[in-house]
C-alpha cells in the first residue's frame, strides 16, 4: 500500500440550492475496501455518481493510475474499470436475470447472443451468492431484496478493478451479507479495490480497511478501521454522541388491534398473527421469506385467496389500500420508487399526500396548515432539502425515505405497518425514528415492524414472528428474542 491507484482531488459538485460536494479529496489503494459514511444527504452517492460518469464534476480532478482521467459518461467509467451498484434499484424488469447480469457484455456466438453460455455463467454467479433463483427468470418476478442481490451479482460479474457498492445491504439480511463479504474478501486478495457505503456501521468494521466520513459535502476525515470504533464514527458523522440507541421496552400492552387468520395467496401461506395496542411486533426472515408480501396482503395491496382480518375484534373487508386506511391502517412500504414517493412531486405534496382528506375544506387544500405540518417533519426527521417545494427526485435516497416516514406518521393510524422503514437512513435519524415509534406505541398504536436489520428487530420488538417461505414458523416472546434465536428459526429447515 504505497501509491494510491485512484486519487480524487478537491472535487466540488454544486446542485441548484445545494453544494453536494465541497473540495473532497479521497485516495483508494489497490486491494483495499474504503468505506464511506455520513448522514443522509452528505454527498456519498454524488461522489460515486461522479466516479461512474452519471454526473460531471464542477471542479477538481480524478487521477487513476497516475493519469488524469475525464469521466464524461458511464461508458468511460466502465472502460476505465469501475463497476457500480447504485443505491436506487437499477435493473431492467423486462429482461431475464441473466441478461441483466451481463447487460452490455452479452457473450456472442456467430453474431447472436449465446444464451446457453449467458445463462450458465449467470447461474454460477447466482449460486456463488447463494441465491435460490433461476438465471432465466424475468427480473419483474423478483422481490425487491432479490433484485438487489442480482444487482450485486451484476457488479461482481464484471470483475472490475474498482467496485463501488452504494448501500448494497439496505434490506438484505445477514446471511446474504455474509456471502457478499466472503466474495469481497476473495476478490480483495486478488487485488481488486472496493468503495463501500452503508449506514449499518457494524458492517464497516467487518469489511472495511479505512473509513472516510462526509458531512454536508465536506470530508471530515479518513481513519483506519483498526484505529476507531462506532462511537467515534458517529461523532464524526453527527458531530455529537448519540447515547443509547434503543429505549427500554416497558410499554403498556393493551387490547388486540389486529388479528389475521389463515391468510393465504400465491406467496403467503396460512399466516395467522395478532398485533395489540402499545405493542411493536417484529417480522423476521430471510430475503424472499414473504414478509413484505404478508404486509401487502393485509393492507389490501395484494390479492388474498383466503383468510380473515379483524380490526378491534370486528371482521373487516379489506380489498384495496383505501379499505385498509379507512380501517385505521398505515403502511410504510418497502420500495421507495414504486410505492413510496412520487418522484416529480415536491416534498410537501408527498408528505401530506395521505392526509389530504383531513387537510382540505370544501375540496380545497389548506396550504397554510400544510406548510406547518411539513416544516415540522422536515425539522423532526432532519430532512435535508432546500425547501418543501423541492421535488423528491432531487433528494438523496435516505431523505426520500424520511419523506415516506413523515407521510405515514402524519396519518396517525392506529395500526402502522413499517416495511424496512429505516432503509438507507443514517444513524442519527434512525434513533429519532425509533423514539417516535416507541412514543407511538406508548400512545396505544399497534405496530408491525418488518426489518432485515436484526438489531432493530431485537431492540424494538415486544414479540417477533419468524417467517420462512411464506409461512410463519415461529412466534418469539419478548424474553426469547435475540439475534441468535431469530437466525436459528429463519434458517431452520422445514421438513
Amino acid at each position, binding site marked *: 500500500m504505497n501509491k494510491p491507484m485512484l486519487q480524487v482531488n478537491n472535487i466540488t459538485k454544486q446542485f*441548484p440550492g445545494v453544494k453536494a460536494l465541497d473540495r473532497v479529496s479521497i485516495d483508494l489503494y489497490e486491494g483495499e475496501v474504503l468505506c464511506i459514511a455520513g448522514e443522509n444527504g452528505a454527498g456519498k452517492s454524488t461522489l460515486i455518481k461522479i466516479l461512474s460518469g452519471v454526473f460531471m464534476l464542477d471542479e477538481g480532478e480524478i487521477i487513476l493510475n497516475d493519469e488524469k482521467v475525464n469521466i464524461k459518461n458511464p461508458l468511460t467509467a466502465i472502460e476505465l474499470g469501475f463497476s457500480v451498484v447504485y443505491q436506487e434499484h437499477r435493473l431492467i424488469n423486462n429482461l431475464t436475470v441473466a441478461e441483466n447480469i451481463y447487460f452490455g457484455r452479452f457473450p456472442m456466438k456467430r453474431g447472436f447472443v449465446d444464451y446457453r453460455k449467458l445463462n450458465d455463467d449467470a447461474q454460477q454467479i447466482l449460486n456463488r451468492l447463494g441465491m435460490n433463483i433461476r438465471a432465466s427468470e424475468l427480473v419483474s418476478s423478483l422481490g425487491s431484496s432479490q433484485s438487489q442481490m442480482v444487482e450485486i451479482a451484476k457488479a461482481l460479474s464484471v470483475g472490475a478493478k474498482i467496485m463501488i457498492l452504494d448501500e448494497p445491504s439496505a434490506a438484505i439480511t445477514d446471511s446474504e451479507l455474509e456471502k457478499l463479504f466472503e466474495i469481497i474478501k476473495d476478490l480483495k486478495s486478488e487485488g481488486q479495490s472496493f468503495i463501500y457505503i452503508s449506514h449499518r456501521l457494524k458492517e464497516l468494521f467487518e469489511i472495511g480497511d479505512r473509513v472516510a466520513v462526509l458531512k454536508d459535502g465536506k470530508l471530515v476525515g479518513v481513519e483506519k478501521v483498526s484505529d476507531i470504533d462506532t462511537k467515534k464514527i458517529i461523532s464524526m458523522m453527527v458531530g455529537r454522541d448519540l447515547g443509547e440507541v434503543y429505549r427500554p421496552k416497558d410499554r403498556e400492552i393493551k387490547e388486540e388491534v389486529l388479528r389475521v387468520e389463515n391468510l393465504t395467496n400465491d406467496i403467503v401461506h396460512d399466516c395467522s398473527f395478532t398485533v395489540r395496542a402499545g405493542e411493536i411486533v417484529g417480522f423476521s426472515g430471510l430475503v424472499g421469506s414473504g414478509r413484505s408480501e404478508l404486509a401487502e396482503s393485509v393492507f389490501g395491496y395484494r390479492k388474498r385467496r383466503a383468510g380473515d382480518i379483524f380490526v378491534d375484534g370486528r371482521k373487516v373487508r379489506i380489498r384495496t389500500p*383505501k379499505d385498509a386506511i379507512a380501517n385505521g391502517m398505515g403502511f410504510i*412500504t418497502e420500495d421507495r420508487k414504486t410505492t413510496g414517493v*412520487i418522484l*416529480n*412531486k415536491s416534498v410537501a*405534496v408527498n408528505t401530506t*399526500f395521505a392526509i389530504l382528506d383531513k387537510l382540505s375544506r370544501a375540496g380545497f387544500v389548506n396550504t397554510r396548515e400544510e406548510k406547518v405540518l411539513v416544516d415540522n417533519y422536515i425539522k423532526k426527521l432532519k430532512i435535508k432539502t432546500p425547501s418543501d417545494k423541492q421535488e423528491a427526485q432531487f433528494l438523496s435516497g435516505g431523505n426520500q425515505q424520511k419523506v415516506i416516514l413523515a407521510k405515514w406518521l402524519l396519518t396517525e393510524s392506529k395500526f402502522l405497518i413499517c416495511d424496512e422503514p429505516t432503509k438507507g437512513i443514517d444513524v442519527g435519524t434512525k434513533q429519532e425514528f425509533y423514539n417516535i415509534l416507541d412514543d407511538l406505541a406508548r400512545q396505544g398504536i399497534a405496530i408491525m415492524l418488518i426489518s432485515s436489520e436484526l438489531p432493530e428487530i431485537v431492540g424494538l420488538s415486544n414479540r417477533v414472528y419468524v417467517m420462512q417461505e411464506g409461512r410463519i414458523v415461529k412466534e418469539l416472546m419478548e424474553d426469547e428474542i435475540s439475534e441468535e434465536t431469530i437466525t436459528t428459526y429463519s434458517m431452520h429447515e422445514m421438513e
Partner: protein
Amino acid sequence: MKIKNTFMNLIGNNDPASKFNRKKMLTTLSPVIGLVALFILASSLSNVFLTASNLTNVLRQVSVLGFAALGMTIVIITGNIDLSIIGNVSMSTTLVAVLLQNGWDVVPMILVVLLASSTIGLLNGLIISYFKIESFVITMGMQVVCFGLSLFIAGGRTVIVDNLAPFMLNLASNKLGMIPVMFIILLGFYTVFYIFTKKTKMGRYIYALGGNEEVSYVSGVNVTIVRTTAYILSGLMAGVAGIFTFSRSLCGDPAAGSALGMYVVAAVVIGGTKMSGGRGSVLFTIIGILIIGIINNTLNLVGFEYYAQQIIQGLIIIFAVVISSKKRR
C-alpha cells in the same frame, strides 16, 4: 419582486429565493419565449399580422382548439391521453345542430350536449381503469365510435339549422372591445381549471396519478375515480368545443372535429406539459394554442406554396417542442 413572486406562484413555484428556481423558471418560461419569437417573426413576415383585426381573428380561431386542448391537458397530466376528443367534438357539433333544428331551446340543448360528451369521457375513464389498459388505443377506438355516432346523428350529411336563436347566431362573432367573447369564455375556463388543478384535493390527485399511480393507490386514493374525473372533464370540454364549433360555422358538420386533428396534443406539449404525466400546467396550454394559431395564420398571410406550408408547419411544431422541452440529463 412582488410581481416575480406572483409569477412564480403562477407557475407553481413558491420558492423564489433559490438559484435552482431561476433555472426552472427559465425552462418553464421557454414556451413563452417561443411565442414571443414567433410573434416577432410573424410581424416581420407580414405587415397585416399586427393589425387589431387580425389579432382578433387569431384569438377567435384558436378558441375551439383551446377548449379541446384544456381537456387534453388534464388527461395528459394524469399520464394518459384522450384521442377521442376529436370524435367527441364532431359528435357534439352535430348534436347541437340536430337539437336546435328540432326546435330545442339553447339551455336544455347545452345541457344535453354536455351530458352526452361527458358520458363519452366517463366511458373512456371506466374502461381504461377497469381493464387497466393503455389509453391510446382505447380512446382511438372511441374516436371512431364517436365519428360513427356523429354520422348517425347527422344522418350522414351536414345539418343545416333554419331559425337560429340570436344567442347561437352571435356566439362566435360577439366581441368585448377587440377580444372575442369566445376567447374570454375560454380564459374563464382556463382560470377555473387552473385553480382546480393547483388548489383542490382532486387536482393534486390528478397530478399525483400522472406522477406515480402506484403511490396514489397505496395511499388510499381511488385511482379509478381520479382518472375518470379527468376523462369526464375532457369529454365536457369536447362538448363545449363542439358548441363553439357549431357557433363558428352555424351548421353541424359530422367531420367537424377532424380539423383539430393533431393540434390538440401538439398544443398541450408545446405548452410544456409532459406526456409522461405529472408535470405541466393548464395555463401554459394557452401559449401552445396561440403558437399553433399564429403559425397557421401567418402561413396564410404570407402565402407560401401549399406544400411548403405543410413542411414549414411541421418544422415549426418540431422546433416549438424542442424549445419547450429541456434536456433531462
